[in-house]
């Protein structure tokens, strides 16, 4: 029957089964590829992956640090730091910008009229396609990555917040707050913002994917540390045992971030439900 509920255990078992299927399918593919060519590096097997992991966590020979702190100089740690540093800075700037503009648009009609045309226009343009413009304005350092992510997610996110502020809050609630003597700021903060917060979090969650795409694309071209850089150089050298580990890390951290945001939404707006 459609939408028939299942028990939690069944749910977990089915989830694990899908992961097992994926791993089995990969193992079979890798096995087949190695039978055709034992030296194949494109679909690495377990021992190749452990070589890749060793390479990722290898401390450079010239390192002077000792013990655990020396691992800060391995590829994996450096790339994680660089990429996620850029991602968080970019996301934070983009979210703040979208929040301010989106809320203002949803609340004040002149601002709405002013911002709607450019936002709907830029929402359809991939920012990576106009990288040259970003060069000229932001240079080639960290500013560029932050701007690319922030301005990349801004049009879509601001539009979503603006729509929510405009449509999801009933006029009754706003009128009631005014009657009780609330100021403009109080209405925006206590009535509108609180009510659309879960929607905002949901939309931020949906924008992490595009933000990551913009970042990797820029790192592909411009930098000497980070996931995009390492993926480019290593896939060029066909070191897929390194590449796939990075992709898994990207997937897992993405999943984790997603889960954290869902958790935040449940804690901040328990009334919203699942």
């Amino acid at each position, binding site marked *: *029957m459609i939408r*028939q509920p*299942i028990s939690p255990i*069944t749910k977990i078992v*089915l989830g694990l*089964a899908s992961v097992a*299927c994926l791993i089995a*399918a990969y193992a*079979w593919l890798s096995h087949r590829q190695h039978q*055709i*060519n034992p*030296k*194949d*590096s*494109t679909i690495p097997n377990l021992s190749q992956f452990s070589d890749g992991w060793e*390479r990722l966590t290898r401390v450079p020979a010239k390192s002077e640090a000792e013990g655990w702190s020396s691992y800060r100089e391995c590829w994996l740690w450096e790339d994680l730091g660089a990429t996620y540093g850029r991602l968080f800075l970019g996301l934070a700037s983009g979210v703040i910008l979208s929040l301010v503009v989106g809320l203002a648009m949803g609340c004040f009609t002149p601002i709405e009229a002013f911002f709607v045309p450019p936002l709907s226009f830029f929402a359809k343009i991939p920012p990576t396609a106009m*990288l*040259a413009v970003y*060069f*000229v304005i932001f*240079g*080639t*350092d960290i500013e560029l990555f932050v701007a690319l992510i922030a301005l990349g997610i801004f049009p879509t996110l601001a539009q979503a917040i603006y729509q929510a502020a405009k449509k999801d809050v009933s006029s009754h609630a706003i009128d009631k707050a005014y009657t009780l003597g609330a100021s403009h700021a109080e209405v925006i903060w206590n009535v509108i913002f609180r009510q659309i917060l879960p929607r905002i979090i949901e939309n931020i969650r949906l924008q992490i994917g595009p933000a990551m795409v913009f970042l990797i694309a820029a790192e*592909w*071209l*411009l*930098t*000497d540390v980070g996931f995009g*850089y390492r993926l*480019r*150089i290593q*896939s*060029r*050298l*066909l*070191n897929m045992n390194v590449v796939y580990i990075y992709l898994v890390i990207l997937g897992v951290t993405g999943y984790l971030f997603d889960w954290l945001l869902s958790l935040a939404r449940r804690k901040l707006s328990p009334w919203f439900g699942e």
Partner: protein
Amino acid sequence: MKNYACYLLSALLCCQLVACNKTNIDTSTTGTGGASQEVSSFSLAWSEYPSWSVFGVADENGLVDKDEGKLGSIEKKWGVDIVLKEADYDTCLTLYGTGTVDAVCMTNMDSLAPSLGRDSVAILPTSTSDGADACVAVGTEGVEQLAGKTSYGLEMSVSQYMFERNLEILGKSVDDYPFSNMDPGAAANAMQTGQEKIGSIVVWNPFVLDTLRKRDGSKVMFDSTSIPGEIIDMVVVGKDSLAKDGGKAFACAVIETFYEVNRLLADPETHDETLIALGAKFSNLPLEDMEIVVQQTRFYKSADEALGLYEAETFQNEIMPKVVKFCVDHGIVETEPAVGYGDPEAQLNFDVSYINEIQESAMPAE
């Protein structure tokens, strides 16, 4: 009860997935088997570069037909179907390394890493960089002033090789000349738009000529004219593909196609149009700049020139070992591939037998 139906359904789904994969393989093997009864078909991946765009021009001229199942004049002569796949350079390397294509256009340096996973045969040198890779700087008078200034170019590529080889020749220490990774197109773009930070770039053509033209005060610090015959553009075929039916005919047809277009280039009557066709997608450089491009990317335009390179003592005993050492030192390859010259056991084999074959079979009079 319904729960069991659920399990059954998901189990069925899984089986179907596996089954689908299997049938795919079956059809693919029968597919190639079927084709070999008529004319076997081989794929060559190429990217836009002066001596590789030759294959694109050959398609336009009808010497070969890039599509599967259609034959150009040279393909008919050798009884083999050449399928041309144009892609970005890095994509070409991946296509070749994964075994998706039979042959690829790549440099001698970049062929080391794939040959560790797929035994490879370098059947034809197409050109060498003789000025096509350069270090271009702004606001710097000479190499002395460049010290301490970061140069931007693609790491682990011919750019970095050219950079370090020149410093070595000039007797400078690599440690005094920082090199940082950046995509060549992006680096050239950044310099042309006047980025303060990007004072020195290490790029290849068309970016070299384009930057010199568009950024006032930009100057070549040094280039690959000091190391001709070290950065070599080639056609490489997988040993597995050469062993297939018609593999040899494929190699010969590719070589003949290359020399045929070179003949068109040498002929004064067809020179200009061929050169324009070569440059059409490579760059937006005008004809006179394309003349410079083909000087800086010196073609091995005949079998004699190709043999002169691959059979030379210096190439086998000095240049290739130097390139291999560079690749090992920079982590481009973790282990050294066995490089051979006419040695069928080698992982990367520079084999002149196909060029010899072409040289012996005189061109048909048309």
